[in-house]
Every structure is written in structure tokens, then in C-alpha cells.
């Protein structure tokens, strides 16, 4: 499982290249800043700094980019907790409880908890990667379109779980998100719902839509209030709550490990990644909690579940990148680009011929996760001053940054128009109690659901009996059915008790 000679060579390799260590802290800071600015993302940061790695050796180049990846993984949690704006799609579930904690003046605790969960998650993901990189390569190849479709249906199920209003509203909002995600050119080359506009050929951009639905609608809803945190005393910045949140997270290690394990597992599946991992982990934490009703109202476990999972999925994503040469998401796709820039091709042959380099990469990332604790602590302490700013000033400034960030993502006015349009839609949905979260989940899993459904249909020829030849699919479907039954029954029981 572990090649000790290669491991020893990896230590030598890391010790002989000081640049491999010098790039780590700047990389973490870049990731934290880009992740924390709504509209920017980890992939933008990695893409912007990719050319800077051209003149570096392979190892420091990849370590620099993975440091951005690691920093950005937590950076997205900062605006999610402080402003209900997930800086990245992987921090969507962090906002569910992080933001209510901020409103209660517990932003320091939430940030501390998120930071520790994120660091442990990253650490966990890479330790697992160290042991599993070789055996997992063969297992991942067995997942076909039907299994991936079940993963997408699993995502749909989250809509019902995460929804605090009625199941009907959750379904309607989720289906709306899926339909929005299908606008533009389809995989088969059909132009759908573009209304003749060339700007919509690539579809509705997911991140600007997410910013509009979550951030713009919430910010507009806040108009008329003075501060994010009403109590003046609670707005004071102190290191103690951050440390207290961090300590509570360490004490709550089973939740951290559960989220990390789930995140790593989901990260291994190509095309799924952190954006699904945080939601799946949040739903699991809520389902297993003794007090599920407290989720969405400021339960620290929600922040821990989301942050540990999205960070650990980075290590999981690296499994498929290193073992198969397949990127699991946007971040690993840029890493693959960096591999190509250095004439390196990921895959089983790369692992067998360069095991020492693979181990050096993993060990370097383990150290990055530990450094994230220190760098992140300084960063969150400075970032938490946002609660002291008057909302009348914060709202137009954040909206402006979101508009510019959306333009940066799309390179055209489609981004800002999407933010404005999705903001209006989100505001009306909130007014009538439709969960915007469900729309965002639908938007994120829609393309995957459609692709896998089409592939499943083509492979099976439309014959449902094909599923009988896919045991993994059947097991996943059975688990899904059990979870769905338990959820619906507990919901019914809850309604009967409250009546």
C-alpha cells in the first residue's frame, strides 16, 4: 500500500528544493483572498497564477497551485459565514448555519470552527490519498453513468432534506434550478431557451446565478437594517471566540472525521467534487443529529460538516487526477494544465514511475494543511471586522464587487445581468417562502444529471432491465430509497407532533 523507499525519496526531494516551501504561504494567502471575494473563485486564482509557474520546477509549481487550492477551500467560507455569500460553490452549505451564527454574534466561533474543520479535512483527504492513490485507481474505473446518475438523484434528494418550507416548494425550486442549468447549447448540439441571444449560448453561468440567488437577494432583503449583527457588544472582534470555535471543533472530532471521510469519498468521483461534497455532508450531519431542527438556525455542526467535506474533497480529487489523469473539477483541471505545461501526464504509469514525486506532492499538501491553521487564523481575525460596517454601505459595495466579479468570470455582461436577474428572482422566491438553496442545488447538479441520464439511456437502449446488471447502482438506489422513506416518515411525524 505504501512504498517506503519512495516515501524516503520524497522527503529528500522536498528537503532539497527550498522553493517548494517558499511558495506555500503566498499560495495560501492568494487562495484565501480569492476565495473570500464573492464572484472570484479558486479556479480563477489558479488560472491567473498558472503562467507564474511556467519557470518553476514541477514540484514547487504544483505545490504553489495546490496551496491556492487549499487556501481557497477555506476562503470561500469567510463571506459565507459573515454575509451569507458563499465565495465559492463549495461553501454553499457553510452559509446555512454560518450566517445565522453571525447574526447571533457568533461569527468568531463559526470562523474558528470552519478554519479547523477545513484544515483537518484537507489533512485527512491527503493522508487518505497517501494510502489509497494506487488501489483506488482501479475502483473508480468501475463507476459508470448509471452510478453517476444515482449520485445526481442523491443531490436532488438533498433538496427535500435542506428545505425548511414545504416539500412542494423545495421540489418546484429545485426543478427550476435544473431547468435553468439546461439553457444554452446541449451536449447534443441543440440550442435551448436562448431566445436567439448569442450571450446565452453557453447557458446561464452558474456562479453569477449563485451570487444573485444567494447574495444579491439577501443583501436587498437587508435594506433598512443597520448592521449584520444587531447587538453592538457582539460586533467586537476578539480572538477568544475564534479559538473557542476551533477548540469546540476539535472536541467534536467524530463530526469532523465523518465530514472529511464523506468529502474524500465524493471527491474521488470525477466531476462531482467539493460543490456536492459540502451539501452531501451537511445533509448527512443534519440527518444524524439529535436536534435536526437546529440546523439552519446556527448549529456549529453544520459549518463543521460542510467545511471538513469541501476541504477533504481536494485530496479525493487528487486521487483521480494522479491515478487516472482525470480532473474531478475546475481546480484539478487547472492542475492538469500545469501537469501538461511541465510535460507530465497523470495516470497509473505516472504513479509507478514517479512514486517519489507523487508522495512529495502529498506530503507537501499535508504541511500546507497545517500551515493553513496559522495563516487562516490571521486572515479570519482581519476579515471578521466586516460586521462593524454599516449595512447601508456594505450592501452597495458588495453588490458592486459581485457585479465586477461576475463580469470577470464570464468576460461579458452576461455575468452582471445574471446577478441582477437571479437577485430579483431570489428576492421574490424568498418573499413567498420558496427555498433559493434548492434552486442553487438544482443549478449545480443539473448538467451532471442530464449528461449521465443521456449516457445511461444510450448505453441501456432505454431498457430498465439494464440496471439489474449494475450491482453498485442497485445498492446505491436501495440506500437512497431507505433514506427517502426515513426522511418522509420523520417529516410526517414532525408535522403530526406540531399539529
Amino acid at each position, binding site marked *: 500500500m505504501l512504498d517506503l523507499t519512495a516515501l524516503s525519496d520524497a522527503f529528500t526531494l522536498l528537503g532539497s528544493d527550498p522553493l517548494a516551501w517558499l511558495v506555500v504561504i503566498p499560495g495560501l494567502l492568494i487562495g484565501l483572498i480569492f476565495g473570500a471575494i464573492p464572484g472570484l473563485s479558486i479556479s480563477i486564482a489558479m488560472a*491567473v497564477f498558472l503562467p507564474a509557474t511556467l519557470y518553476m520546477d514541477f514540484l514547487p509549481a504544483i505545490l504553489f497551485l495546490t496551496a491556492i487550492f487549499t487556501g481557497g477551500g477555506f476562503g470561500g467560507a469567510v463571506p459565507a459565514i459573515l454575509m451569507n455569500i458563499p465565495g465559492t460553490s463549495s461553501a454553499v452549505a457553510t452559509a446555512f448555519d454560518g450566517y445565522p451564527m453571525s447574526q447571533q454574534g457568533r461569527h468568531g466561533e463559526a470562523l474558528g470552527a470552519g478554519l479547523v474543520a477545513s484544515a483537518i479535512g484537507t489533512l485527512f483527504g491527503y493522508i487518505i490519498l497517501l494510502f489509497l492513490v494506487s488501489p483506488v485507481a482501479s475502483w473508480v474505473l468501475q463507476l459508470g453513468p448509471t452510478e453517476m446518475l444515482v449520485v445526481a438523484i442523491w443531490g436532488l434528494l438533498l433538496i427535500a432534506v435542506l428545505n425548511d418550507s*414545504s*416539500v*412542494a*416548494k423545495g*421540489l*418546484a425550486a*429545485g*426543478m*427550476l434550478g*435544473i*431547468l435553468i442549468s*439546461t439553457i444554452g447549447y*446541449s451536449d*447534443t448540439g*441543440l*440550442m*435551448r*431557451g436562448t431566445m436567439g441571444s448569442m450571450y446565452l449560448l453557453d447557458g446561464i453561468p452558474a456562479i453569477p446565478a449563485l451570487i444573485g440567488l444567494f447574495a*444579491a437577494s439577501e443583501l*436587498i*432583503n437587508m*435594506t*433598512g437594517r443597520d448592521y449584520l449583527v444587531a447587538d453592538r457588544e457582539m460586533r467586537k472582534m476578539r480572538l477568544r471566540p475564534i479559538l473557542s470555535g476551533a477548540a469546540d471543533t476539535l472536541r467534536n472530532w467524530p463530526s469532523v472525521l465523518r465530514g472529511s471521510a464523506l468529502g474524500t469519498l465524493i471527491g474521488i468521483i470525477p466531476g462531482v467534487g467539493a460543490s456536492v461534497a459540502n451539501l452531501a455532508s451537511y445533509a448527512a450531519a443534519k440527518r444524524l443529529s439529535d436536534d435536526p431542527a437546529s440546523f439552519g438556525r446556527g448549529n456549529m455542526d453544520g459549518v463543521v460538516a460542510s467545511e471538513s467535506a469541501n476541504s477533504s474533497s481536494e485530496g479525493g480529487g487528487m486521487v483521480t487526477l494522479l491515478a487516472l489523469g482525470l480532473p474531478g473539477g475546475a481546480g484539478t483541471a487547472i492542475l492538469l494544465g500545469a501537469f501538461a505545461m511541465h510535460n507530465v501526464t497523470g495516470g497509473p504509469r505516472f504513479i509507478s514511475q514517479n512514486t517519489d514525486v507523487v508522495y512529495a506532492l502529498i506530503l507537501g499538501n499535508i504541511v500546507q494543511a497545517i500551515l493553513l491553521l496559522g495563516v487562516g487564523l490571521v486572515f479570519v481575525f482581519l476579515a471578521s471586522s466586516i460586521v462593524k460596517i454599516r*449595512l*447601508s*454601505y456594505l*450592501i*452597495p*459595495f458588495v*453588490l*458592486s*464587487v459581485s*457585479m*465586477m466579479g461576475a*463580469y*470577470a468570470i464570464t*468576460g461579458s*455582461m452576461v455575468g*452582471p*445581468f445574471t*446577478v*441582477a*436577474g437571479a*437577485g*430579483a428572482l431570489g*428576492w*421574490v422566491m424568498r*418573499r*413567498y*417562502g*420558496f427555498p433559493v438553496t434548492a434552486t442553487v442545488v438544482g443549478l449545480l447538479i*443539473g448538467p451532471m*444529471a*442530464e449528461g449521465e*441520464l*443521456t449516457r445511461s*439511456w*444510450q448505453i441501456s437502449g*432505454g431498457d430498465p432491465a439494464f440496471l439489474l446488471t449494475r450491482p453498485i447502482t442497485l445498492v446505491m438506489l436501495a440506500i437512497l430509497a431507505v433514506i427517502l422513506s426515513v426522511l418522509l416518515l420523520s417529516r410526517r411525524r414532525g408535522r403530526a407532533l406540531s399539529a
Partner: protein
Amino acid sequence: MAHPTDPDTSAPRRRWGPLVFAALLALAMLVYAWSVMGIARGLTDWLLILPVALIGAVAALWAGVADMKPLTGLAKTVERTWGEDTKPILLLVLTGAYACAAPFAGFDVGTAVFILLALLLQGERSWWKLALASLAGAALMTWIFTDLLSVRLPTLLF
């Protein structure tokens, strides 16, 4: 004659707003599915869209009809009136106008005007605070995006 402080004894009124929104949502989903069916060349073009639109439309209408029931108790007390929503609606319009104006006015001028109007809308009346926030704020943000992050934003002055 009823006194202004008397408890509300008027007959509970049905809420048409949620039904209208739900009906519009359902209609949009069905029209979209219909448009895709119209141009589809094969089953895979609408394999996901048709069932999703049907489920979504039925769910939206179900939710809209359920929400027609008059609110009672605490829900009635906390319900926001359209009068309370004037400022958010104006800010929504302003945000839309900002997005529409940015290609012509540039993000530098457009952002300065947007911040100025948004602050005025939210009650800020100090002229130096308005000037500082709108001009310096817009300049700083534009500089960060154009010079620091090398984003080619449409601008008028920068």
C-alpha cells in the same frame, strides 16, 4: 367606530400573491419544456427537461394553492407588507439599471452612480460621505479589478 388600536377583526383574506407567483413559475417551466420539445431532434434532447418541468409545475401549483390559505397567529403578525418592501424593490430596480448601464457608462462611472444612489435610497444625507464612498469606492474597486487582477472591465475614465 373602530379604534386604531382595536385587534384586527376583519375577515381573513385569501393570499393571491403566492398563487400568482407559483402560476407564473409553473407557466415558465412548461413553456420552456414546450419550446424544447418543439425543436428537439430526438428523445435525449428532452429526456430530462420534460419530466423535470412537469414535476416542477405541479409542485409549484400545489405550493401556490396551499399558500392561499389566510395567515393566522404569528405568521400573520410577521408578514411583510408591500409598503415595507418599497426600499428593497427600488434597490432591485437600481441594481438592474446598474447592470444595464455598465456597458455604456463603464464600471467606474456606473459603480460610482450606483453607490451614490443606493446610499441616498438608504437614508445617507451627508454629502462628503456620499462623495467619498461613491468616488473613492468606485475608483478603488475598478483599480483592483483592472490593474491588480487584470480583468478587462468596460470603463469610461480608467
